[in-house]
């Protein structure tokens, strides 16, 4: 009897009870900024709730590291700004936000095999737009993913994101936001 009890006790370990299910897992990159974290949570919860696919949020020190990981295949999804994207592509400033988005989208697809999805909304600190960017091979594996993430189009402007960060609980705020928008 003692053997049985001890066998159980030996496994009284703090194993991860993460919600991850067996199957495919998508990885989203985020920095430690509250804005980045809450946007990553919105996308992660949207995907997980509506598809059952597990989504992992991976932390990076800055946007450049995230971009590098996305370009080299360590990440599936990231959120980028059009102004920074044009800079990476070596392109000058565009005439307006929409033109910048279209230039970034075309350049990323042609040179990096990265797919820009519809913009979340205006990014803070200028006329740039923020938009989810997904690897082309990820889109091939998950053909319904662009359509799903596109449901966030125009919903996450800098002001909205700032409001979502106020609670200091990005996961909870993100979930509440998606519920209010009737997306989950």
């Amino acid at each position: 009897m003692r053997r049985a009890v001890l066998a159980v006790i030996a496994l009284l370990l703090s194993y991860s009870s993460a919600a991850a299910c067996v199957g495919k897992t998508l990885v989203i990159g985020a920095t430690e900024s509250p804005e980045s974290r809450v946007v990553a949570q919105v996308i992660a919860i949207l995907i997980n709730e509506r598809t059952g696919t597990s989504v992992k949020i991976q932390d990076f020190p800055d946007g450049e590291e995230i971009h590098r990981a996305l370009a080299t295949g360590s990440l599936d999804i990231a959120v980028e700004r059009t102004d920074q994207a044009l800079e990476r592509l070596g392109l000058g400033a565009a005439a307006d936000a929409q033109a910048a988005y279209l230039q970034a989208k075309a350049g990323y697809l042609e040179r990096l095999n990265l797919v820009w999805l519809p913009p979340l909304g205006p990014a803070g600190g200028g006329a740039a737009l923020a938009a989810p960017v997904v690897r082309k091979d990820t889109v091939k594996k998950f053909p319904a993913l662009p359509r799903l993430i596109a449901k966030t189009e125009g919903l996450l402007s800098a002001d909205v994101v700032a409001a979502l960060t106020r609670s200091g609980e990005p996961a909870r705020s993100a979930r509440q936001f998606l519920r209010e928008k009737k997306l989950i």
Partner: protein
Amino acid sequence: MKKPGRAAILIFGALGLAVAQAGTPPPIETIVWRGDVQLAADLVIPRGSRLVVEPGTTVRFGFRDDDGDGWGDASLRIEGELVSRGRPESPVVFTSQQEPAEPGNWGEIRIDFGSLDLSYTVIEGSTRGLHAHFSSGRVEDCVLRRNVDGTRFGESSVAVEHCLFYGHPGKAFNARKCRNQVRANVFHDNENGVFLFEADGGSAFEGNLFRANRNPFRLGDFFEGVVPARGNDWGGELPAAAQPDRDSGAARLEATSGAAPGAGPRAWPFWAEGPRPGEVRDTSPPAAAPGGAGGLLFQADDSGAVRAVEASTRRVVWRRPLGAGVRSEPWPAGSTAVAVATVGGRVYLLDRMSGLERDCWEVEGETQTRASSTPERSR
């Protein structure tokens, strides 16, 4: 059965009773739980072990939030066998240490490469409910209520029959690539009744009753294939759109209507017709004095609880916290239950003798009219 050794008592002192049964064929080691079992930390029942939970056992999980999402993660993990067979009058209850249990108070019962055999078992207040991968077994006459998700089955084969699912803000029944038998269950007042992810391996969904769910039957955004759901009582129109805002034709639900006369737990009194969307239910007591039959008086107290008091001795027989103020004194609901309405907009159906929750539903609006028929059925 041996008595627990000193080590067991020391280690499981907070867990109630845990003993290994002698004389069972190796290599299965049996652990038995009875009484009140408190789980403050995660617990793993390893491969080659069987956890037997006896009728009347209540397992209470503490709150621990690992990932900051506000939902509890404390869990019981089964890698062997889970046998939880309660009785209608003394079910096994998996719940939270917090009363009343609300969605997300604790994590899940997780079964990996194992088996499950559950009957008359209540699972309430969890985040992920009954969460099984590559497992098989049966879940019969059980009640899953007010979990975030009632089940998460992945690549498993489970017979889920005569169960009652209600009050889930996520998915009451949630599965992916399974071959389940989902028959004669009642789904009411859930955000999603049945939710299938990615694909289905040939499950059957028949003879179930759906009422007042936002989406009775939904296919996930990545789902591809055709799902037959024939002969279910949808309470009106067929669920025309499996995915309300999905514009792909890759997934299709083939639903037909049928009667579900035997749906729900057997010998378990609950509301005969789950409330329909927009329907107003009575939450006011009848004109006559509230219930005092059987020598018991039923009273609401100021702390949002209901109690049964022995009329002759004033002894409190049971007390049930409801988490919200009570709108009126409880009233009799059939011969075996009392009904009580809270200011939070819920009506509870409680067992007259034990206070056990038999059913619960949300009401809309402040003005209710009494339902014309008896609010109870018992099989």
